[in-house]
């Protein structure tokens, strides 16, 4: 129509777009970090020496001292951004819960998994980072001692699958949300992603076992 009858003009704001973009970027950044992290820690499987050397390298270059808190910040930022989507009201929680049970739809379930693992990661991840970063330097021996103490064993056995699930699902989600994976390739990509998650959990488990058997 020729006549504009709107009485107010909403200033076009890009806020939602920026926040969504940032959520994706922090998520992607954390994924990259977690993959590297898992591989670095898994280097203990090649022998404690390998892990120590790598850890030394990162510390000598101050990447741990600077990078560590950076990761911590990214972690927090990602949490703040993603929390916008998490249903905190009981009413919403019950809606989405009933909805998912009714629908029996994998991708909807996966989101629930993502949202609930997130809460665990938030708490356990923070504790873990605090512990490691306040007890530098990182050495295979110290790690092994921690894990052989028992408490950290249980701790990691819980955190590991949580993180890997969250990361895996997040990876898949970024790809479909931003259209990097189209409808034709979705199924194949999901399979690929599942396999990846399983592999990472396996590597993690092997690593834990290695720490258990490492004589300190």
């Amino acid at each position, binding site marked *: 129509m020729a006549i504009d009858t709107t009485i107010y003009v909403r200033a076009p704001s*890009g806020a*939602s777009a*920026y926040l*969504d973009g940032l959520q994706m970027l922090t998520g992607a950044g954390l994924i990259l970090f977690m993959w590297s992290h898992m591989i670095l820690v898994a280097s203990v499987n090649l022998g404690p020496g390998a892990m120590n050397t790598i850890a030394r390298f990162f510390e000598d270059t101050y990447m741990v001292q600077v990078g560590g808190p950076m990761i911590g910040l990214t972690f927090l930022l990602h949490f703040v951004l993603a929390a916008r989507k998490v249903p905190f009201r009981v009413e919403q929680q019950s809606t989405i819960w009933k909805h998912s049970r009714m*629908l029996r739809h994998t991708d909807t379930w996966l989101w629930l998994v993502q949202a609930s693992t997130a809460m665990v990661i938030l708490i356990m991840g923070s504790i873990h980072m605090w512990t490691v970063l306040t007890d530098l330097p990182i050495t295979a021996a110290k790690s092994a001692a921690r894990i052989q103490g028992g408490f950290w064993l249980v701790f990691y056995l819980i955190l590991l699958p949580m993180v890997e699930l969250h990361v895996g699902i997040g990876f898949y989600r970024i790809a479909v949300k931003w*259209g990097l994976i189209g409808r034709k390739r979705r199924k194949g990509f999901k399979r690929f992603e599942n396999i990846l998650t399983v592999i990472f959990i396996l590597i993690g488990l092997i690593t834990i076992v290695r720490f258990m058997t490492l004589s300190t």
Partner: protein
Amino acid sequence: MGRQLKFHIFRYNPEDTNSVPRTDDFYLEETESMTLFIALTRIREEQDPSLQFDFCCRAGICGSCAMVINGRPGLACKTLTRDLPAEITLMPLPVFKLIGDLSVDTGTWFRSMNEKVGSWIHNDEAFDPDAQEERMDNALAEEIYELERCVECGCCVAACGTANMREDFVGAVALNRIARFMLDPRDRRGEKEYFEVIGTDEGVFGCMGLLACEDVCPKELPLQDQLGILRRKMGWSALKRLFRVK
């Protein structure tokens, strides 16, 4: 000879003060090529004339008969009972206002959705009755048609966890509609106008990529792809705005 089918059907008539939400059971013998349209019509005519549900075209074209069939939103008229187990649970679509039993008010929802996204060709020029039509590439026409096939059944909205949790989310159907007009050169809206409509958390950035919409759409619209395209386009549009020298 046919199977004995058992239907669990949600019942509630909000207009009747004596009515309480409940589930009623009905039994029916299955016949060949039986669709839920045939089954429900028979139940109403032979067992309970008060049963409310909606059918119109009974040919999967009009979108009237969407309901939750064994947990999944779908068109009842194009669901063959032979594709279902012998126990069939029917519920009304969530998100939409209940009229009674399996019948919900999609009309009001969709009208306001269409108003919200400005679902029409925006063009200030006047139609010239004597001029030849504006030319268009046939491939483009078919591309537009591909997105215009939506029948506004509401399945994608009902299946979307986001739409269930957040009333203000416009849903995949609205985003797909915008994608349709973006393709159309006759619509003179620019990126900025589209951004104002869907570049928000009620629009494309509210979508969490649950993809139930894609998986239930009875017309198999390419919702996943369109949502992806829109998110990228709107993301770009916001970036450009960020770096534009004022």
